[in-house]
């Protein structure tokens, strides 16, 4: 009889088993760390002391104490701590202490998702109930029953919500929340690092509105932020809240031993340098672990990938564990489904979960032993967050990052020191993005009239107020601007997605009983929910029968096929306005506004297992237009010796490589910034590479690229050169280029871009 292996045995197996050990290119052991503690604050309320005691807490970790002292002194703080370091006590302690000494005190907790809010309510209520304190804490979200909403508004000491709810339900109805806003002493912003990019820029404006309403009711709350490790927590917190912050990063929490493995799948096609698919390798490793009933979380980068891996794994272990013991978890599932999965993980009924980055956040799923990443998650910060899912508190844990063939993955896996030593990415937001700003100015005007000299953000309001008046949305009377429109502005503005409207996915397998099974943002829907697309949901395949673009509905029916679909997006770009141009001897570096037009063109059917192309079809969807900001670099050299075709392929190769390296520099999801080449750019007729923000108006990513252009190109060159292939492969310049000379041409082109004299000039210009 075969005995089940435990984690120790698995670790030994990985070290000696030929199937695995050859592919493990890095094995880093992160040593366990002891706790650093100090005694509880002396003036701590006896009830609170008693409650902590009943949970076995007699001392505080050093970071908890520093947070407590600063908050009690009235300072806003940002605490940076790893997963499971007791960060919740950083805010619960001072908040509860303040409520105990003055029952009128109110606190608002904001979590990025409803799931986290639910978790936190249980956690804070445990502390409250342990000592029978008379403190009410409630969640307030879309699920809150109407009959207790009134109670939450009037009597909730701690109101736990999410930014979307704050934006569309609380702030626009602030008159129903007078007792909260008059007495608001604390605003807690957990998972600060998630508020970056477009979402963060929106949330910064929601906070501007919150502070504006607080001022109206005469309160001036302290902000308490907690964040996972990023390069600039202090800057992000200050930019998001517009408050001076104290950084708390003296983490005193203990942690167990962690084995961090880089796993590079074997090369299966030497000439093309193609490696075995990461998905298939993950199936092998995860299958092994799950067969031994070792609780494992598998992360995948896209929703489709999650569903594919899930299908594989459920198939693999269905006889031993039953299909329900491995579940998928991602955005697009309905909340009840998600709650069930979270519970199953905590109770141990579910052994494995396959997730998108949705589970990076602090949703409480208990301690898992192993974390497997299917490909590099895109940012250092994200990778550490995912790794934190394994072995949250004590004991040994295993983290395996399986690289894909993508240039970024190969760069990371071949440069482990980059990953382990480099500080994580900088989180960027641009609250003054005009589109985002103006949307929130509307909401703010709806909430309270604007006064003539009032500030909102860093852009003068005068001109914006005049614009909104001309647009017949505001009405000026004397020195005040009033909302004068019959709409409810917050309902038309979504914080989460670039496009305003999501596509609803309707399952009509049972004609009489059609039901909504999920939703997707419009841009993703173009390539994932087009007619005939195979859409995967909890491992079940659905085919899209009709995508009603007007009504934003995709009608799907369950099918059983052996392929998935992959769609192409054709992109056109035009420069509208050059804001900055540096004309150098060899190149021209610009930054400005561009118009991007994207259209889904065709899709391919790709067979499971072999991943071969077994058919294709056209996609008939209207073009989507985007006005945004972009950075670009144009060559003055004409490359006549190379010829038009080779130049074009070289540029495509360059763009392919840049597309993967660029996100490294701007802590963006890879889909937030795009790179496209043009042999002859419309505006200057030169070979040009564009980097643009995938959000109307831009969110500052391409601006950062503009500043760091030489560095981006230098790293890209290094990546291509270190690739072992001969003439170009998916891991460096991609496979869209087919000729023998592509790789060399690409390198020549990049060299021209970073011609030493150009480089020097650029560096000089930029500093």
């Amino acid at each position, binding site marked *: 009889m075969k005995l089940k292996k435990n984690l120790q045995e698995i670790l030994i197996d990985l070290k000696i088993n030929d199937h695995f050990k050859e592919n493990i290119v890095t094995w880093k052991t992160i040593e366990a760390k002891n706790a650093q503690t100090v005694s509880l604050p002396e003036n701590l309320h006896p009830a609170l002391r008693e409650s902590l005691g009943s949970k076995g807490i007699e001392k505080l970790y050093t970071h908890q104490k520093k947070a407590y002292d600063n908050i009690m002194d009235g300072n806003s703080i940002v605490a940076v701590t790893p997963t499971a370091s007791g960060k919740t006590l950083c805010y619960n302690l001072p908040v509860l202490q303040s409520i105990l000494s003055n029952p009128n005190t109110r606190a608002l907790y904001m979590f990025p998702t409803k799931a986290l809010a639910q978790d936190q309510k249980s956690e804070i209520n445990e502390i409250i109930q342990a000592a029978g304190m008379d403190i009410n804490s409630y969640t307030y979200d879309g699920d809150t029953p109407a009959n207790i909403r009134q109670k939450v508004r009037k009597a909730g000491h701690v109101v736990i919500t999410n930014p979307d709810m704050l934006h569309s339900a609380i702030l*626009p109805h602030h008159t129903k929340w007078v007792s909260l806003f008059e007495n608001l002493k604390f605003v807690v912003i957990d998972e600060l690092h998630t508020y970056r990019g477009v979402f963060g820029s929106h949330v910064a404006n929601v906070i501007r509105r919150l502070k504006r309403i607080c001022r109206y009711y005469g309160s001036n709350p302290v902000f308490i932020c907690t964040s996972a490790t990023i390069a600039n927590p202090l800057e992000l917190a200050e930019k998001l809240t517009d408050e001076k912050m104290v950084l708390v990063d003296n983490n005193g929490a203990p942690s167990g031993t962690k084995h961090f493995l880089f796993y590079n799948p074997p090369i299966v096609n030497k000439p093309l340098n193609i490696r075995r698919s990461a998905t298939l390798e993950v199936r092998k490793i995860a299958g092994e672990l799950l067969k031994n009933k070792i609780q494992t979380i598998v992360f995948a980068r896209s929703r489709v990938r999650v569903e594919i891996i899930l299908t594989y794994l459920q198939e693999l272990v269905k006889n031993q564990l039953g299909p329900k013991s491995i579940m998928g978890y991602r955005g697009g599932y309905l909340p009840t489904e998600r709650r069930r999965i979270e519970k199953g993980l905590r109770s141990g009924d579910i052994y494995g979960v396959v997730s998108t980055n949705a589970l990076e956040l602090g949703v409480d799923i208990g301690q898992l032993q192993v974390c497997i990443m299917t490909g590099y998650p895109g940012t250092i910060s994200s990778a550490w967050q995912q790794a934190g899912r394994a072995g949250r508190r004590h004991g040994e844990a295993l983290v395996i990052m399986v690289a894909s063939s993508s240039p970024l993955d190969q760069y990371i896996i071949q440069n482990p020191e980059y990953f382990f030593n480099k500080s994580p990415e900088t989180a960027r937001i641009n609250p003054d993005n005009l589109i985002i700003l103006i949307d929130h100015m509307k909401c703010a005007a709806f909430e309270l009239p604007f006064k003539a000299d009032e500030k909102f953000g860093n852009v003068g309001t005068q001109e914006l107020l005049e614009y909104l008046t001309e647009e017949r949305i505001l009405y000026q009377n004397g020195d005040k601007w009033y909302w*004068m429109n019959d709409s409810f502005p917050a309902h038309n503005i979504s914080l989460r997605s670039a496009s305003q409207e999501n596509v609803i996915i309707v399952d009509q397998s049972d004609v009489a009983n059609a039901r909504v099974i999920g939703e997707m943002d419009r841009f993703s829907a173009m390539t994932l929910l087009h007619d005939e697309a195979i859409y995967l949901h909890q491992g079940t395949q659905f085919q899209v029968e009709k995508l009603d673009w007007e009504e934003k509905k995709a009608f799907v029916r369950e099918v059983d096929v052996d392929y998935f679909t992959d769609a192409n997006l054709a992109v056109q770009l035009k420069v509208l306005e050059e804001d900055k141009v540096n004309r150098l001897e060899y190149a021209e570096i610009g930054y400005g506004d561009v118009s991007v037009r994207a259209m889904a063109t065709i899709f391919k059917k790709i067979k499971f297992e072999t991943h071969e192309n077994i058919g294709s079809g056209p996609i008939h969807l209207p073009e989507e237009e985007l006005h945004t900001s972009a950075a670009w670099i144009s060559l003055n050299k004409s490359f006549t010796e190379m010829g038009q075709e080779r130049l074009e392929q070289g540029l495509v190769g360059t763009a392919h490589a840049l597309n993967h390296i660029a996100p490294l520099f701007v802590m963006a999801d890879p889909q937030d910034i795009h790179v496209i080449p043009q042999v002859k750019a419309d505006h200057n007729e030169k070979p040009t590479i564009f980097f643009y923000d995938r959000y109307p108006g831009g969110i500052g990513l391409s601006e950062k690229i503009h500043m760091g252009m030489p560095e981006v190109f230098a790293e890209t060159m290094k990546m291509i050169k270190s690739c072992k292939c001969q003439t170009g492969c998916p891991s460096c310049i991609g496979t869209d280029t087919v000729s023998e000379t592509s790789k060399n041409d690409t390198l020549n082109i990049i060299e021209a871009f970073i011609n030493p004299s150009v480089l020097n000039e650029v560096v000089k210009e930029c500093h």
Partner: protein
Amino acid sequence: MSLKNKLNRLKPHISGGVQGVTSKDSPETSRVEIPYLSIWEGENVTPYYMDQDYCLIREVKYPLSQKHGHYYFHDFLRAVEIWNKQPINHPLSAEGHTAEELFFFDTETTGLGGGVGNTIFLLGYASVAGDNLVLRQHILPHPGAEVPLYQSFLEQVNYKTLVTYNGKSFDWPQVKTRHTLVREHVPKLPAFGHFDLFHAARRLWKHKLDRLKLAVVEKDVLGIVREDDIPGYLAPMIYFDFIESKQPDGMLGIIKHNEIDILSLVTLYTHLTFQLCGLDSNQTRKEYFEVGRWYASLGEKGEAVKVLTKLVEGSDYTSLQAKLTLAYQSKKEQNWEISLPLFLEVADAQDHQLSPDACIEAAKIYEHKIKDYKLALDYCLMAMEIAGSTKVSDPKTQQQLEHRLKRLEGKFAKFPR
């Protein structure tokens, strides 16, 4: 590039809501000077000044002998009298109030949803004073003049009870919201009770009206005919136009619309009272049944039985409904002797809608109280038969019935009579 140019280019990405009103010249200078004052005065509108600002108040008096729809305004006095004479516990009862204390109230706003930014620009109400029904409307002449608006409104009103149409969930919360914004400057909002006629209308006429908008009730129930009425949904547009142009014309249409709404509330309250107290000779059996059912759900047993018993005679659907409602009422009081024959009558009527439930109830009584499992089994089978022959029976009921049947078969086998 200037911000405005940028904004204009980004326009397609900026979310909607671009119908509103421009004000190019600030009306600063015309603060105390009231545009088109003579037109306003011709419409019984007078300004109410406060500090540097003002609002407008329209006042109209109607003699109580005036008819609006099927009723005279003085019928309303009778309605109040009726409630005060018979102590029935009912949410619309005016017991303890004089007619003068009732306050018929309706607002006009710049939006349909709630939220702080939805501005109330007209507060209208009517109440009885002497031989007249006095109607007053407080009008917001421009955004920002809310202090005089609420000040004048709160000064003039002297009431204990508010009568509205859906005011409980819309008008009054909105008044509270807007009042919060000026609460530093004007008196506190009084707390008071509330008669919401919308809920009453829904109870009584849901069976015959598709929509329960006040305009529909007016036309189909109250016999009120509106001439040249401006539909309420245009109110925001007209108001935005008014604050720009200051021209009273469009506003006068909205004011008229609001006035009829309020007068109709008086007629509606009167009619509802007559319905509830059985004084309307044109009342249909269906309406009367809804009245009985309402009393039953309120726990006004005496009234419910009185009304429903009158409906039991006959063999129409309404009489079956009345029997079933009475049967349930007796069941609640554990009065099996009365409820069983009523359930049986409804069961034997073989009505697709009502009989299955009656069969099940009869089966329950036979099973648990009388312990006659054979009869219980019979009625359970009958329920299945009737329910099975209709297409509408829901699977859950079917399942429960099958479960019950199985149990009864077991019991019957064990204890045959």
